[in-house]
């Protein structure tokens, strides 16, 4: 069998360590033994693929999942999913979840004293198009307090989960908003050493996707690990065999 090219390893400093004491929850949950470096095999270069119609149209518009309109500032979050070789990642699943405009999650363990919105759950998913593009309509999430340290507040953020073409390309991250004063104090945002890498988590306000009288646009491009070297034959990633 011919050698299978693996996916690139992360550039040192561009990913968070497992143990980051300023993020208190990591202290008892981060492994302390060194990780065992595993060369990529068929098990890592393949991964779950989903039907292109797995996400119904309503799932990408978080403002239209209920009978009424949610409270808050309507926004459009869109971007492209690319790999490190600048190739689009088509037909891949993107999942998001977030707090409502008041900074409260629709979740039984969120006890923050802020109102729930019966018209906003804060869950969405979409499949990228053939150019790797995705687009969500949602509400700008509120900042919220948390128990990490005295007077701790999370900057406004949207959680993102992506699969990409392989087990090795799985990614969960958070998207932030330009100019948020809480970002520089946030131990989660700041867990990554490389400043440029951190700043790629901040979405950019975007006139092009802003809809007049409707919603401001924010652009958030997401880069997943790319192949180590060009494979012999090109597969259309994300397609079911």
């Amino acid at each position, binding site marked *: *069998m*011919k050698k*299978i090219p693996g996916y*690139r*390893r*992360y*550039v040192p400093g*561009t*990913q*968070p*360590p*497992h143990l*980051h004491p300023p993020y208190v*929850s*990591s202290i*008892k*949950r*981060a*492994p302390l033994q060194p*990780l*065992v470096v595993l060369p990529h*095999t*068929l*098990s890592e*270069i393949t*991964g*779950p*693929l989903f039907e292109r119609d797995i996400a119904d149209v309503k799932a990408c518009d978080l403002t239209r999942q209920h009978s009424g309109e949610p409270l808050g500032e309507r926004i459009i979050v869109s971007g492209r999913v*690319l790999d*490190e*070789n*600048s190739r689009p990642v088509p037909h891949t699943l993107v*999942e998001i*979840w977030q707090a409502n405009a008041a900074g409260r*999650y629709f*979740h039984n*363990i*969120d006890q923050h004293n802020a109102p729930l919105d019966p018209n906003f*759950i804060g*869950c969405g*998913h979409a499949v990228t198009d053939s150019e790797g593009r995705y687009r969500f309509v949602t509400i700008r999430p509120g900042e919220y307090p948390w128990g990490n340290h005295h007077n701790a507040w999370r900057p406004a953020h949207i*959680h993102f*989960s992506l699969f990409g073409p*392989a087990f090795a390309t799985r*990614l*969960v*991250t*958070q998207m932030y908003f330009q100019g948020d004063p809480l970002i520089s104090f946030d131990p*989660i*945002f700041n*867990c990554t050493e490389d400043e440029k*890498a951190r700043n*790629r*988590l901040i979405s950019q306000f975007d006139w092009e996707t802003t809809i007049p009288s409707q919603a401001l646009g924010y652009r958030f491009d997401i*880069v*997943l690990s790319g192949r180590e070297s060009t494979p012999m034959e090109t*597969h*259309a990633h994300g397609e*079911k*065999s």
Partner: protein
Amino acid sequence: MSLQAITWQTVGPFFKIGFSWLYRDNLAEPGVSGERLEIAGRILDGDGKPVPDGIVEIWQANSHGKYAHPDDPQEKPGELGFTGYGRVPTDDAGSFHFTTIKPGRVPGPDGKLQAPHLAVSVFTRGLLRRLVTRIYFPDEPSNAEDFALKLVEPGRRETLIAKRIEGRTGELEWNVKLQGEGETVFFDI
């Protein structure tokens, strides 16, 4: 090379909102071939306390050792209705469980076959990025020659091998110890 992969961030405590629509605890619908197994376990932290806000994702080959993926070049039969993907949350006791079939063997980097295994991602509040590990199977002679198990110091290998439960056929136990004594082996992939 022009771009760099984006940085991971924790799933936080509220991932259920985004993940629950795709929970899949049964990978082996009726008609899927292979030895059916129920795998259950707990995620425990460095103090041995259960982790109630965790999630386990599975990726595996079918019973012939073929992945439902176009980059698997092997000429082995695929199986309709078998995707190989599972996603299960932990409950208040830190427990999770899923039903699947024992996968066949897939090739390793040296061209030799690997022992049957599931690829596993673990996400919890407190983990800034996922932990990657594997589940191997008990009483499996090929474990002795598996390249990935051989990368692990012998004393820690058992953390990757599910255990039989006395008197209960078809049920296996496999726990995730995030930290401390008996810490599960996690891979850098």
